[in-house]
């Protein structure tokens, strides 16, 4: 999550105080990602150093100061909003690695391992859903942030379901058979985070 750009986005609406920025950030994101004052302060300092924001009091920047976005800051924000995040190479996902490894470990029932993770994922989703259910209708930021988390967890569980079904059909663990993946894919699974 880019706190820097989120703060720029809030400042694009007009000048704001540091503490106000913190409150508005939390309100917009449904308080799902709490920010501490120190984080706001250091981020604003960096933004000011890079000429992306200006503060009222050039002598000393602190969260109590008022801040406004500069033309460079506006430009940076517009660029960032349209730049896709890194999605092209698979993340080094700990859960994926656990399941791939578990399939070859003697004495481990990979389906039990999958079920344990599935249950945990569903339990987390129950908590997020409860949070969304408790939220008032006007809390759009919260609903959007919770949806994002629910879709992420849902995709994890779908992958577990697919892995479960695939492994039930597979004749033997991949470690027992010859190379499980073609070299190109193997490189990608071990790709960067």
């Amino acid at each position, binding site marked *: 999550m880019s706190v820097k750009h989120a703060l720029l986005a809030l400042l694009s609406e007009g000048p704001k105080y540091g503490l106000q920025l913190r409150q508005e950030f939390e309100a917009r994101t449904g308080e799902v990602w709490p920010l501490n004052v120190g984080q706001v302060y250091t981020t604003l300092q960096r933004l000011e150093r890079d000429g992306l924001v200006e503060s009222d009091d050039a002598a000393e920047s602190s969260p109590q100061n008022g801040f406004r976005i500069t033309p460079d800051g506006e430009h940076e924000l517009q660029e960032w909003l349209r730049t896709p995040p890194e999605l092209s190479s698979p993340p080094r996902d700990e859960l994926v690695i656990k399941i791939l490894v578990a399939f070859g470990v003697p004495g481990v029932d990979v389906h039990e391992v999958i079920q344990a993770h599935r*249950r945990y994922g*569903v339990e987390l989703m129950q908590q*997020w859903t409860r949070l969304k259910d408790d939220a008032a209708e006007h809390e759009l930021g919260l609903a959007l942030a919770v949806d994002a988390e629910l879709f992420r967890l849902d995709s994890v569980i779908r992958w577990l379901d697919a892995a479960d079904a695939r492994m039930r059909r597979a004749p033997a663990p991949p470690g027992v058979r010859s190379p499980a993946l073609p070299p190109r894919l193997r490189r990608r699974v071990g790709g960067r985070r």
Partner: protein
Amino acid sequence: MTALELRGVSKVYADGASEVHALRNVDLVVQPGELVAVMGPSGSGKSTLLTIAGSLEHPTTGEVLVGGNLLTSMSRNEQARLRRRSIGYVFQDFNLLPGLTAVENVALPLELDGVHAKPAQAAGLQALEELGLADRASRFPDELSGGERQRVAVARAVVGDRHLLLADEPSGALDSINAEAVMRLVHTACRRGVAGVVVTHDAQLASWADRVVFLRDGRVVDQTSPPAGPESLLRSQPRA
């Protein structure tokens, strides 16, 4: 008194010379006001569990109690009355009668149960109102959107004095926002004291439940623990 209880329920279908074990020794207790989701892949026995819970099918062995009443000790007529009065069903494909308007569809179970047309329609209209569909009451199913049709189906399932709501993939092919609306309705019905059982392979639907039971090859293999309050999620977020 429990709303629904399955005790050692097994169901075996004959498939030519061989047998298919759809359910194997399933125990399940659902309390009034509780929403339980049954999750499992295709062929895990989810739908069989639901039809047996709703007395649409009988188990090969084991017992089913609805509202404390043992189904096997009831006559066929008594079971039919129980289905009309106490149990509401929501199916994946809505199952609305195309020749009846929305309100007539909702009122139908009451009318079949001997309630006069006028009070039945009034109850139907009230159920539709609660689901935000009062202005669609006189439309026919083919004049409604998919989301509206499913809401009518939920209204029909909760109209009158139902104690048990059974739903098989209730969001069907709805998009996620409409699916959420359907689950909110089911959840709200449960808060009013109705016991709900939703079978689904969709974790997003299941996450509305108080408890999720995992079915695999006809057996209950696992279930979730009672969820912690949502505030624990926010506390656990790193303040990085």
